[in-house]
């Protein structure tokens, strides 16, 4: 038998008191997709970074094709045929697609040849993209596609993907897995796939390694694995069925029996008679390039209800969330929050009226990586500023009342189970999922009138999804109007009392939880108009 493409033995890495990897063994074989599963902070990314040369292990040996190697630099890893798609986008936004793809090569710059190369890779793997587009104009799905093209352009023998689907729609994820299958079967590459999503790992991998708190707790062939078992191994305790369902991507949770609704939900449905806390009427907005973002969108949220906005990514969800973060001006239409009419686009107006927003791109705009966890937790509902500069302003103001802030932060860390060595650890030292929890904790703790949650469980593990879902329900039960914007249908189905479907910048259909028709919902999401509403 030939030696595996990569073999890691006894890898240990400590960050201060945190043991991110604890004597980990991992074997990546050619022609196989190897799933690496684990909670937020389990050490998955750290392990992958050891392989790509971004983190030097304290102990352990890496063998590539049987040869022991010391990888201390991504360039060395690239030479050994290792490529990685990182958990957070590693693209340079102001540059174009082709410029990003060839970044780091050594040959002379030749735009035509580079674009041709992008075209070839696109075709070979079925990943269509326009090489001349600027990355800052790309949707999350296209950015991920670009990351993958960038990784594959050097024809690596070992491909590492760190949670590649956390920003993808289900359709896009499926497409990605098809590409991976092709890569593995046709080109005999070894693939490592890091993920939280059990269904994904079950469907796409050949072998699974499960990590918890830095150590490998289980290892099995995908054929011998089942979802509840994996979830238990990952979290270390049994997980409630519902959130497991969300993590699994099952929509049967209540499709089986839609009539059964808990008392809390009943109460919420009854409470839908009073004045809406949020009402958007005929919102029309255009992007800088003249593209229509919102096209007469109207929508209401009443106190105590969770309204789910379902739809395929890129149909105006981002604009809707921007509108409610005061980042988008309207050409026409109004936004009412309870009795006030905050002018759309005026910085801070929505927040002042009581709208809290959990942005979808939390890592990009929801937190300031150079500041401490405590500071990030206590900045109040920051408007989404590109550079986070606006956050720094607020931080200056928040310097008052240090003790109160500290206590508050520590409470949130405890409540949300944020894994951090200390409240004043820098934000960048947290694992990806834990950074998300910080943003969630801050927004959910702000006592809002309206809570907008865009993709709130993106990148979270089963345990955290459970917690977030509970918190959203709790918020609704306490009279907050919750607007849940999500491209993951099962999440919407699981949480929402009422579902509206967004398509090309407008709401094209609505249905109650009690009269749910999943098939019609699917049709609506793909743009099929309703005959009668």
């Amino acid at each position, binding site marked *: 038998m030939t030696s595996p493409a990569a073999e890691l033995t006894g890898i240990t890495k400590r960050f201060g008191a945190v043991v991110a990897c604890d004597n980990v063994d991992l074997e990546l074989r050619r022609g196989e997709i190897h799933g690496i599963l684990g909670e937020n902070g389990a050490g998955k990314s750290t392990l992958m970074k050891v392989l790509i040369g971004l983190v030097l292990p304290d102990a352990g040996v890496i063998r590539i094709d049987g040869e022991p190697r010391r990888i201390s630099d991504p360039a060395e890893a690239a030479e050994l045929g290792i490529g990685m798609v990182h958990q957070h986008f590693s*693209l340079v936004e102001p540059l174009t697609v082709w410029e990003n793809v060839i970044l780091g090569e050594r040959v002379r710059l030749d735009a035509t040849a580079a674009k041709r190369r992008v075209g070839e890779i696109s075709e070979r793997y079925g990943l269509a993209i326009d090489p001349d587009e600027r990355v800052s104009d790309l949707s999350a799905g296209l950015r991920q596609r670009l990351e993958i093209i960038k990784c594959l352009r050097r024809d690596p023998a070992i491909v590492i993907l760190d949670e590649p689907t956390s920003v993808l729609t289900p359709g896009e994820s499926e497409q990605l897995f098809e590409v991976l299958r092709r890569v593995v079967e046709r080109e005999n590459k070894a693939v490592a796939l890091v993920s939280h999503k059990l269904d994904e790992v079950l469907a796409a991998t050949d072998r699974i390694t499960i990590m918890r708190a830095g150590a490998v707790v289980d290892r099995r062939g995908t054929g011998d694995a089942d979802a509840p078992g994996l979830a238990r191994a990952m979290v270390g305790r049994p997980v409630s069925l519902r959130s497991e369902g969300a993590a699994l991507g099952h929509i049967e949770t209540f499709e089986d029996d839609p009539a059964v609704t808990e008392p809390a939900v009943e109460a919420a449905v009854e409470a839908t008679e009073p004045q809406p806390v949020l009402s958007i009427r005929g919102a029309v907005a255009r992007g800088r390039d003249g593209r229509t973002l919102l096209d007469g969108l109207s929508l209401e949220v009443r106190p105590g209800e969770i309204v789910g906005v379902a739809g395929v990514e890129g149909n105006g969800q981002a604009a809707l969330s921007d509108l409610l973060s005061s980042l988008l001006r309207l050409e026409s239409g109004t936004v009412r929050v309870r009795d006030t009419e905050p002018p759309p686009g005026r910085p801070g107006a929505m927040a002042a009226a009581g709208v809290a927003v959990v942005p979808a791109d939390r890592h990009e705009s929801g937190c300031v990586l150079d500041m401490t966890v405590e500071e990030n937790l206590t900045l109040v509902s920051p408007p989404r500023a590109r550079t986070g500069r606006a956050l720094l302003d607020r931080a200056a103001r928040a310097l008052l009342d240090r003790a109160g802030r500290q206590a508050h932060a520590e409470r949130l860390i405890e409540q949300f189970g944020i894994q951090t060595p200390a409240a004043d650890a820098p934000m960048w030292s947290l694992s990806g999922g834990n950074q998300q929890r910080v943003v969630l904790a801050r927004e959910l703790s702000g006592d809002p009138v309206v809570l907008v949650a865009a993709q709130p469980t993106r990148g979270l593990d089963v345990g955290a999804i459970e917690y977030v879902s509970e918190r959203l329900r709790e918020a609704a039960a306490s009279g907050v109007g919750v607007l849940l914007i999500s491209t993951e249908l099962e999440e919407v189905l699981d949480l929402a009392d009422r579902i509206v479907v967004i398509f090309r910048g407008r709401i094209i259909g609505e249905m109650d939880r009690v009269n749910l028709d999943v098939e019609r919902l699917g049709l609506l999401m793909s743009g099929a108009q309703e005959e009668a509403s």
Partner: protein
Amino acid sequence: MVGDFFVAVGDVLSSETTYSSGWRLAVALAFVAVGEWIAERAGTINISVEGSMLAGAFASAMGYDASGSVAVGLLIGAAAGLLVGAVQAHFSHNLTANQFVVGLTLNILVLGLASFLNSSLKPETATAHVFEVPGLVEIPLLGPALFGQPWPLYLLYPLIPLAWWLVYRTRWGLEVRAVGENPQAADVSSIDVNARRRQAIYVAGVTSGLGGGYLLLGQVGWFEDAIVGGQGFIAIAAVIFGGWTLRGAMLGCLLFGSANSFRLSLPAVGHPLNSELLSSLPFVLTICVMALFAHRTREPQSLARPFIRGLR
């Protein structure tokens, strides 16, 4: 008082020398700004350009004194500028010292050193001869300003398109832009972030040294401690003023150079006006522009942030 001011403005604007001297002053700034623009695109606010410029001016005086050749003087000036840049680059992007502290220290150091050496060595210098570009110098009003100048000035003309080409058309330029925007992404794409940043500072050192040489051999003619007098800083202001585009930076140089010549011309045409006030004009203008266009200009996202792997 206000009336006086307008009379002064009228006198200055009708004086031919204003344009020509405005252009000369703008060129000195532009030499520095071209390099500083590249350094900033790579992510460094390289305040040592002031020191590079002064070192360049003094070294070119020494070079001219020793060789009797303006060309040799300029070459040595550029080398001195590079040396200052190299020290800055090493300390800020190899040893990760704070780039501003390093720059400030260097500026003070160079000033002291040049002043001491000048008083003890007293180099003999002169100005380069004026070269009139045949034909072009005939262009009315602007001809003499653009094409009837001491020849080192013309070095700037090819330098600007060259810088543009370097940044936008070469792999090196692509990597420079990438490390200024998102060094983490550049790093994982196997680009040596700090090497690119150092190289960009070397370029700024060379052009600033050249700018200093031009100032001495193309304009002033002798070395004095105040020969640079903050022009390096004004060039930095021009880059910011120009919103980190080459065109904008050059426009800033033109504006600030003209303002400076205006200030110098006022007493010459017999109007004592507070010139200290006027000399603050570039900075006031830059602040106004930043306030007005802050939302439109896009600074390199990692400007002035050191890169250490693992930090985020």
